[in-house]
């Protein structure tokens, strides 16, 4: 096994994205400064919390998408998988009336199972990731509607459920900082995934698969197994996103989810992860997700007309990727 080779690849990846990270971070700060100067209503505790809360679901989804994208794949099913996991939590908690912990576990397991399936399609059946996860996106969308009976499932029988996202552990210790648990969970997921990527063998193979899968395979590694593991991990993270969104809405909304994968992928790309694989960081993705939410919130606070909001957001995505290309050409 070529541990040294893959370590080399990892550090190379970090060096590349280190510079981008700074750039993305600077953009985030610049955006925040501009919006703060433009409106007194922007830089307020309640609004900052609203921005963080709006980031929590897309941030977690983007972290899941980052893992798959680093392997050189793409996951279009993150949005509807999130919904599917939310519906599964609804079935366990509301239809079956089981305690909270079972619902949480079921959502995460459902995510892992679906990820394993996507990974198997990609690794074993050699279906291109775009197609395999496009298929899964539609399957999961349909299943969510079927299982829920096309109606939202409410969590009124499990009063603790809304606390997952809306409660505030930090606020109960420091009343001046009522940061919702959903935001805390986003940061915990980011730290844990970052650790897996940078410090574990699974992380090393994630980068190695994206850099040169053939070389890894020829050095005697069972690449299929590692690839499936990455998709499964990404799936279970989507399960967490499902818990976050349904807890925030106090309901599993079965029709929601399609289109959310695009916001997640946008956050990944703005954060400097390469769509061709082998390069990327979780912190970059986190910053990318924050840029998207700050932009959406800030433009709303400035009462920019809705049709122009999307024009600006689209322009930012193109600029972000273009500056990344420019910068890499210079290196």
């Amino acid at each position: 096994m070529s541990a040294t080779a893959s370590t080399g690849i990892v550090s190379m990846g970090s060096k590349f994205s280190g510079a981008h990270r700074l750039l993305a971070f600077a953009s985030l700060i610049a955006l925040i400064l501009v919006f703060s100067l433009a409106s007194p209503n922007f830089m307020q505790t309640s609004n900052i919390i609203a921005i963080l809360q709006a980031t929590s679901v897309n941030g977690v989804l983007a972290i899941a998408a980052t893992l798959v994208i680093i392997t050189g794949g793409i996951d279009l099913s993150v949005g509807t998988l999130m919904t599917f996991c939310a519906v599964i939590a609804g079935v366990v908690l509301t239809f079956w009336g089981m305690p909270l912990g079972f619902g949480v576990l079921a959502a995460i397991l459902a995510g892992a199972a679906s990820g394993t399936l996507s990974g198997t399609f990609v690794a074993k059946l050699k279906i291109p990731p775009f197609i395999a996860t496009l298929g899964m996106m539609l399957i999961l969308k349909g299943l969510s509607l079927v299982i829920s009976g096309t109606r939202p499932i409410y969590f009124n029988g499990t009063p603790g459920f809304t606390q997952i996202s809306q409660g505030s552990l930090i606020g109960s210790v420091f009343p001046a900082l009522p940061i919702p648990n959903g935001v805390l969970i986003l940061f915990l997921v980011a730290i844990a995934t970052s650790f897996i990527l940078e410090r574990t063998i699974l992380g090393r193979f994630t980068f190695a698969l994206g850099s040169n899968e053939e070389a890894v395979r020829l050095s005697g590694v069972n690449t299929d197994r590692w690839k499936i593991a990455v998709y499964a991990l990404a799936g279970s993270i989507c399960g967490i996103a499902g818990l976050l969104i349904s807890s925030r809405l106090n309901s599993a909304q079965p029709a929601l989810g399609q289109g959310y994968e695009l916001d997640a992928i946008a956050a990944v790309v703005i954060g400097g992860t390469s769509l061709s694989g082998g390069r990327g960081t979780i912190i970059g993705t986190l910053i990318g997700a924050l840029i998207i939410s700050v932009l959406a919130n800030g433009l709303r606070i400035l009462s920019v007309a809705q049709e122009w909001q999307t024009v600006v957001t689209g322009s930012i995505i193109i600029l972000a990727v273009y500056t990344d290309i420019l910068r890499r050409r210079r290196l």
Partner: protein
Amino acid sequence: MFTRRTVLGAISAAAILGYGSSFALAQDKMYIPLISKGFQHQFWQAVKAGADKAAADLGVEVTFEGPDSETQVDRQIDMLAAALAKKPAAIGFAALDSQAALPLLQQAKDAKIPVVAFDSGVEGDIPVSTASTNNIAAAALAADKMAELIGDEGKVALVVHDQTSRTGIDRRDGFVNRMKEAHPKVEIVAIEYGEGDHLKSTEITKAILQANPDLKGMFGANEGSAIGVVNGAKELGRQLVIIGYDSGAQQKQAIRDGQMAGAITQNPVGIGYKTVEAAVKAAKGEAVEKNIDTGFYYYDKTNIDQPDIAAVLYD
């Protein structure tokens, strides 16, 4: 150096310059955001036009936002959160899911920001007023017209946009119950749901027509459903009495061409106008009606160009 920071700065600065004027006005004008269920759809643009007109008449500032699709409950919540951060005088809100919006609506209530519900409204006692169409009465009128046109007997079917939303339920029940009460010889043979999607509603219509060779009439309960019914009948070359709901260029054309007998129109411009009007009153602490009926009309080839009807139709 050409960095993203400078570019971002430039874009943001341009955005602020461009909207600086309206922003400066926001300081002294009363500000009322409307959070709607949709945005691109012509119906919502007509609501927006009414809101803008009221804003101009009453000297207030209004913004209008809504998610891309009616499934995006969380996006609507984010819009509501941003609207609240702007410390508005009052809020107009058409909930996609009232329960999901409850924490923020409670926040608005605690901050003494009056909430005016519009269109399908907001469940619970937080809204000071609700400006909406009486969909039950409007669909009952459609049933009366249908019965009249088919000679008060025979088979009819419904294509409805969905079975969970308030408007879907009210229009279906309004039509069905009126038929049962006032036109006992009219038999309703099918009620199907097509998500308001043109193509899905077309397929559904064709299936219903295949199954019922003697069907005399069909009711499409919103714009997409009605267009689907017209297309389905056209593709199978069947002649029947079709009654639609709302307007839009295609539906208006179908009525002019005689493919559709007529349709119910709500008054979306009135919904927008009355919502802002009630919000301004509530913000000033004046009394407002709990339920504001924004009205509806039946229109067909004969009155489609009358000024009072043309004013509430949209393309």
